[in-house]
Structure formats: structure tokens, C-alpha cells
């Protein structure tokens, strides 16, 4: 790209483009008058009113004016920079003007649309907003986009179904994977599970995927290994892995947290004793070993979940309870199976169908309320049947407590080391529940599986594959390119007081003890400018929002 080299000492030649946005702006204020006014502003050498500045012809007008009028700043007064700045600044770049010499003024969303029917006032406000934008633009400086290399290797922490799926999908795309598993064997929690809701045994499913992962030349598996240290930034993380063969140091481009969760051991709940009152996981083991002699089985759902201190719903225990109730009924049709529940969480059409199938097989369902929770004692389950208002006593041989998955004890330490957040329950917290469910807020770090929130094996696999696609979107680029709107610290005036370092929410600032100054890591910097507001000597400044630029804008208000 041939960028126009603008010296800071060169007289600004500003072009102002006023957009009508059809009637969206021109319908509520006088755009011609506004454009005429813009001509009178300092350094403005060219103005143009467009019907739609973002249209091909509008963009063409900007490009033409940059060349013919020798503009070195462009101001577009139209809609929001949040939606249209990228388009306009890249158009400037195409015309040879550094894209950071572009400024946008919002006269639609924040003017014409909110002052309808006040034409004179809206026109006046638009003029003032343009005056402010022009004043700021005169002080803008050219910037170069920040580029960084990308290492096409990924660290996956956790060898459960989520991590294995992520590794498999990444390997499919030709990316190199380092898979780190804390225990001696791959497979995670599924190793304790009997049969999946797909009908296959968990072992079959695992053997298939583990065999495949082991056979791939671009996946390195380290079992009985833990990640000891992570540093660096997206594209260039450096990690230390403690393996059986000693400490390994590796460089990776992205990191995936797939550390899973553990089932709650229901100590002290409903008379749990591990023999006649067991957990769901213990039932899985019994079923796997064909070791079930009970003739009357009662499941108690939400055992240790949705209560004070553990408010959340573990989401998958209803499915697991119903699945196992059906397995018992299929194998031992004469066994009496009852499920005591608070709410049935059988989301999705196929799980809903499972619930009906379970009823069809003779599994009985009863609602209980947490205020009148079932009491297990002496081979009986006493519970208040909400529907009839009666207290029933059920004779049982086996009580199964459907317990939630809980976060691993060491996940807080891992979160701390990787600088990623956890939620109030201790699960890893994604950047956005709906818009970025597999990303962490930190760039280049991802999460999948039950470490994020209890997931079925199918969901964990889907998330693993999803993470692989998120990673690929980054690592298949030639290099990392990010906006130059980041902080900079003037090494001449910085006295190394470290005020900025403590303020930076992204740990993007480091102190150089040799030079005794603070320095910004441009890749980690998110451009918030907190350092700039804190710096007593104004050595730290946010590009595009420097004091001179903002003070000029404020002064013109």
C-alpha cells in the first residue's frame, strides 16, 4: 500500500465530507448549510455534500479529492465510527492517505435522529460537532498498523473429550498440537462413564478418538504432565510444561483450556454411604460391571445442586439420570425405577423424546420441592409428593444421587497463571456467553468442555471443534495485524514511576530495570488509555487520542 507520508510539520489540508444519508440526516438538518460552514473552519480546503458518502460514488469523491486537492486529513460527517470508520479509513488508504489521518463526526445517530423536528438546533449542533472533529483531525498523526508473527502450533490443556476433539480438529487442518494431560491416561471424565446417550459405550467412543489422536504425527501428547508457566501474547505464547521427561519449553500461537470438571462427591447428603446410597458416577461403574442387584432404585436429582453455596444447575444430570434409569429398565424390566426431581432439564427435541421414552419404559417421575426435600433412612426414602400433597415412604435397595459437576480445585490456579477469569461458581468465564462463547477475553486463549460449564460429551466435542475453528481463523492468517490505536510511552520523559503499570488492566506494560522506564507491549495493549490518564509526566499517551488532539476537540466544542 502506497501511503502518503505526512509530516507533522506539514500544513494540514483537511477535506470535509457531509453525508445526507438520503433523508436520514438531510431530512432533519440543513446539510448544505453545514457543508458551507465547514469551509470556514481552519485548515479546511475542501468540502463536499454527498447523498450517501458510503456509496461507491461517495467513496470515489473522497479518493478523488485526496488526490486532486492534495488532502492530508479527511473528515466524514455522517453516521457512527463504530460502524463506518473501517470503511472510510481503508478508502483513504486506497487513495494513498494514511488511514489514521481520518476522523469521523457523528451527525446522524447522535444528532439528526435524536433532534427530529428541531431543524435549526440540529443544524447548529452538526456544525459544532464538525468543528470539533476538524480541530481534532488537524492534530492527527500517521500510524503504521502493528504486525506480529504467528506460530502455527497450539497448546491444548486437558486430554478429555473436549481437548481430544479440539486436537483432532486442529490436526485435521494441518496445525501442530501439543496436548497436555495431567493424569497418566487420556480420556478425562468419560473414562468413568458406562454408556453415552448415543448408545455407544464411553470406552468405545474414547478408544476411537484416542487411537486417532495418538496416530497423528502433528499431535504430541504429554500425559502425567502439567503446564507450569505461560507468558507472551497471541501468536507468540511461551509455555513451560512439566513432563515425565523433564521440563519442556515450547512456543505456541494459541492456547486452549479444556480441563473439564469433576463430579461432586455427595458426602453428608441424603445419607450418602457409597453402598446403598451412591452417586451417579458410582452407578455408571456398577452398570459397566453389570453389578446391579437392586430391585427398587430411587434417583434423587439436584443432589448438592441449586442450593445455598452452589446455586447453579449442572444441566446434564437430568439427562444422565434419565439415561441410566432407561438402561436399568432395559436390562432389568422388573426393577422399580423412580426419579425424584425438582425441574426436568431435558433440553432439545431429542432429550425431550428420551423423557417420553423413559416414561414409556415404566420409569416413574415425581416432583419434590427443596423445602420438603426427600429424607433417606433405613432403606426408605420419605418424600412429600407435591402433586398429591401426601408424604410417601418408598422402600428402596438403592438410592442414586444425581450430583452436579463442580469446577476442579486447581482451576483457580490455572486461571491465575493464564490470566483468564472464572465465574462466581469457579467455572472458566468466556468473553461473551452468546457472541464469543469459546473465546476468553484475552486474545488467543480459548475454552471448551466442562471447565467452562457442565457439558455432555456431544457438546464437549462440538465445543472442541468450535475452538479449532476459532484458532484457525487466527493462525491461518499470514501475520497478525492490529490497529495502531494503542498506547505509547515516551522513553525520553518516562521516569519509571510504574503508575501506568499498576493501572493497565491487560498487563501490557512492563518495567525495564536497565533503562528504568516503562514499556508497552503493543500486541497486549487494548488501547484503553488508562495509562495515559495516570501518567504524571504525560509520557504515556494513547495514539489517536493524545492530549493535543483531545484538547483541540474540547476547545472547539
Amino acid at each position, binding site marked *: 500500500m502506497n501511503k502518503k507520508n505526512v509530516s507533522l510539520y506539514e500544513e494540514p489540508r483537511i477535506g470535509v465530507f457531509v453525508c445526507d444519508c438520503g433523508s436520514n440526516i438531510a431530512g432533519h438538518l440543513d446539510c448544505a448549510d453545514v457543508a458551507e460552514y465547514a469551509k470556514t473552519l481552519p485548515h479546511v480546503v475542501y468540502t463536499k455534500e454527498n447523498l450517501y458518502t458510503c456509496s461507491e460514488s461517495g467513496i470515489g469523491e473522497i479518493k478523488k479529492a485526496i488526490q486532486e486537492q492534495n488532502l492530508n486529513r479527511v473528515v466524514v460527517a455522517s453516521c457512527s465510527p463504530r460502524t463506518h470508520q473501517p470503511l472510510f479509513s481503508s478508502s483513504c488508504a486506497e487513495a494513498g492517505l494514511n488511514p489514521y489521518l481520518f476522523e469521523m463526526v457523528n451527525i446522524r445517530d447522535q444528532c439528526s435522529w*435524536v433532534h427530529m423536528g428541531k431543524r435549526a438546533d440540529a443544524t447548529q449542533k452538526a456544525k459544532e460537532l464538525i468543528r470539533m472533529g476538524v480541530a481534532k483531525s488537524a492534530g492527527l498523526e500517521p500510524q503504521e498498523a502493528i504486525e506480529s508473527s504467528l506460530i502455527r502450533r497450539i497448546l491444548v490443556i486437558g486430554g478429555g473429550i473436549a481437548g481430544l476433539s479440539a486436537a483432532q480438529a486442529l490436526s485435521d487442518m494441518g496445525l501442530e498440537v501439543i496436548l497436555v494431560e495431567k493424569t497418566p491416561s487420556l480420556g478425562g471424565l468419560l473414562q468413568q462413564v458406562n454408556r453415552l446417550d448415543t448408545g455407544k459405550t464411553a470406552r468405545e467412543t474414547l478408544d476411537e478418538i484416542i487411537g486417532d489422536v495418538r496416530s497423528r504425527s502433528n499431535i504430541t501428547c504429554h500425559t502425567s504432565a502439567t503446564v507450569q508457566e505461560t507468558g507472551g501474547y497471541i501468536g507468540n505464547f511461551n509455555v513451560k510444561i512439566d513432563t515425565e521427561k523433564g521440563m519442556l519449553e515450547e512456543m505456541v500461537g494459541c492456547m486452549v483450556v479444556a480441563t473439564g470438571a469433576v463430579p461432586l462427591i455427595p458426602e453428608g447428603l441424603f445419607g450418602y454411604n457409597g453402598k446403598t446410597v451412591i452417586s451417579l458416577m458410582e452407578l455408571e461403574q456398577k452398570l459397566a460391571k453389570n453389578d446391579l442387584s437392586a430391585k427398587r432404585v430411587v434417583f434423587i436429582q439436584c443432589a448438592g445442586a441449586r442450593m445455598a453455596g452452589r446455586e447453579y444447575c449442572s444441566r446434564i444430570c437430568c439427562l444422565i439420570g434419565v439415561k441410566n434409569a432407561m438402561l436399568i429398565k432395559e436390562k432389568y424390566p422388573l426393577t422399580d425405577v423412580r426419579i425424584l426431581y425438582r425441574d426436568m432439564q431435558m433440553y432439545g427435541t431429542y432429550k425431550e423424546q428420551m423423557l417420553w421414552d423413559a416414561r414409556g419404559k415404566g420409569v416413574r417421575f415425581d416432583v419434590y420441592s427443596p423445602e420438603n426435600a426427600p429424607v433417606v433412612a433405613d432403606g426408605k426414602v420419605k418424600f412429600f409428593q407435591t402433586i398429591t400433597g401426601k408424604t410417601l415412604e418408598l422402600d428402596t435397595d438403592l438410592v442414586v444421587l444425581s450430583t452436579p459437576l463442580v469446577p476442579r480445585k486447581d482451576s483457580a490456579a490455572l486461571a491465575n497463571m493464564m490470566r483468564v477469569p472464572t465465574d462466581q461458581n469457579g467455572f472458566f468465564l468466556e468473553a461473551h456467553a452468546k457472541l464469543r462463547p469459546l473465546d476468553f477475553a484475552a486474545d488467543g486463549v480459548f475454552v471448551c468442555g466442562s471447565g467452562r460449564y457442565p457439558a455432555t460429551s456431544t457438546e464437549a466435542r462440538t465445543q472442541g471443534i468450535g475452538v479449532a475453528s476459532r484458532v484457525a481463523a487466527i493462525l491461518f492468517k499470514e501475520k497478525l495485524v492490529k490497529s495502531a490505536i494503542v498506547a505509547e510511552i515516551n522513553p525520553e520523559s518516562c521516569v519509571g514511576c510504574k503508575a501506568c503499570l499498576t493501572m493497565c488492566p491487560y498487563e501490557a506494560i512492563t518495567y525495564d530495570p536497565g533503562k528504568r522506564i516503562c514499556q508497552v507491549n503493543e500486541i497486549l495493549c487494548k488501547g484503553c488509555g*488508562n495509562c495515559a490518564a495516570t501518567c504524571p509526566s504525560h509520557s504515556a499517551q494513547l495514539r489517536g487520542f493524545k492530549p493535543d488532539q483531545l484538547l483541540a476537540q474540547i476547545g472547539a466544542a
Partner: protein
Amino acid sequence: MSQDFNPQILTFACNWCSYAAADLAGVSRFQYPPNMRIIRVMCSGGINPNYILKAFEKGADGVLVSG
């Protein structure tokens, strides 16, 4: 205070929340008095106190920091 007092208000709005909210107010066609000017910043935490003083010095009657 007289009825016709028309305060000039300068707002510093965070690009990621308040500035977006001001856009949304426009998209929703919420109507408000035209005596406010918004300056977009990348984070309300990046506002130097000097900016606020400068606004008052230049005659602003009120400064709103939103983020």
C-alpha cells in the same frame, strides 16, 4: 435558575458502551435536548482530569463522563 437556562454539556463517552448506547438512542429515535456534545474516548478510564478542567475553562456548564 431561570427557565431559559440552556446548559452546555460536554460528554466523554466510552467507545464500547456509552458511545454505543448514544448510537442506540439514535437508532431507537429517542429524542433529547440538543445541548450536549459527545467526545468519543476508548475508555472512560483514559480520561485525563485535564480534559474535564479544559471543558469547564472553555465554558461548559456540565461535564458527563460515561463508561
